[in-house]
């Protein structure tokens, strides 16, 4: 079974600062996904990373994948309050998705 670990679990950062969330996985994953979940809401897809070296960017978020290190990162640039949410990464084997425990991000004005 694919194990997915995220760190940190909780992150409090000031507006305008940069930070990185890390996602490690235990065995080969076909793909790597990032999701966002606002309190009391469902999950929203952010990025799909298909291969080694893949990099995707949307606004202040940038995700990358290193399959050799079994590591994906989600980099936040110049954080703003609207980015406060819980971020999940998920790996896949076959068609089954395995989610990390999530990183709860709070951006402080």
């Amino acid at each position, binding site marked *: 079974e694919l194990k997915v670990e995220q760190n940190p679990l909780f992150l409090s950062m000031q507006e305008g600062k940069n930070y990185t969330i890390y996602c490690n996985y235990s065995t080969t994953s076909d793909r790597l996904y990032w999701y966002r979940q606002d309190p009391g809401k469902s999950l929203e897809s952010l990025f*799909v990373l298909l291969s080694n070296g893949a990099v995707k960017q949307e606004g202040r978020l940038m995700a990358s994948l290193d399959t050799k290190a079994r590591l994906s990162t989600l980099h936040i640039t110049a954080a703003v309050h609207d980015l406060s949410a819980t971020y999940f990464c998920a790996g896949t084997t076959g*068609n089954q*998705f395995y*989610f*990390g425990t*999530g990183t709860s991000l709070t951006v402080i004005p």
Partner: protein
Amino acid sequence: EAGVAQSPRYKIIEKRQSVAFWCNPISGHATLYWYQQILGQGPKLLIQFQNNGVVDDSQLPKDRFSAERLKGVDSTLKIQPAKLEDSAVYLCASRRTRSREIGETQYFGPGTRLLVL
């Protein structure tokens, strides 16, 4: 395009009672997933359907949980009897294709929040 629909949104029951959740996936999506998300954790897959067939139900507690997807569209998830530890959000997600060659993401419904007293 309409998203994944789920009902009810909230449910409170007593332990040993039964409960059922309903999911309507995005039109044309062949793959449907049910997840259990306990507070503070990531979603855990319970069952995966491809059209109306079960692909993976290895983590479904079959002594009390059951699910079906008649006609390959809507799906229901049932718990009978419920236990206190079943308190969680039950998320339904759908995906257009099962193919590994396409980086298709899942689209999640709003979830059903279950509280077992």
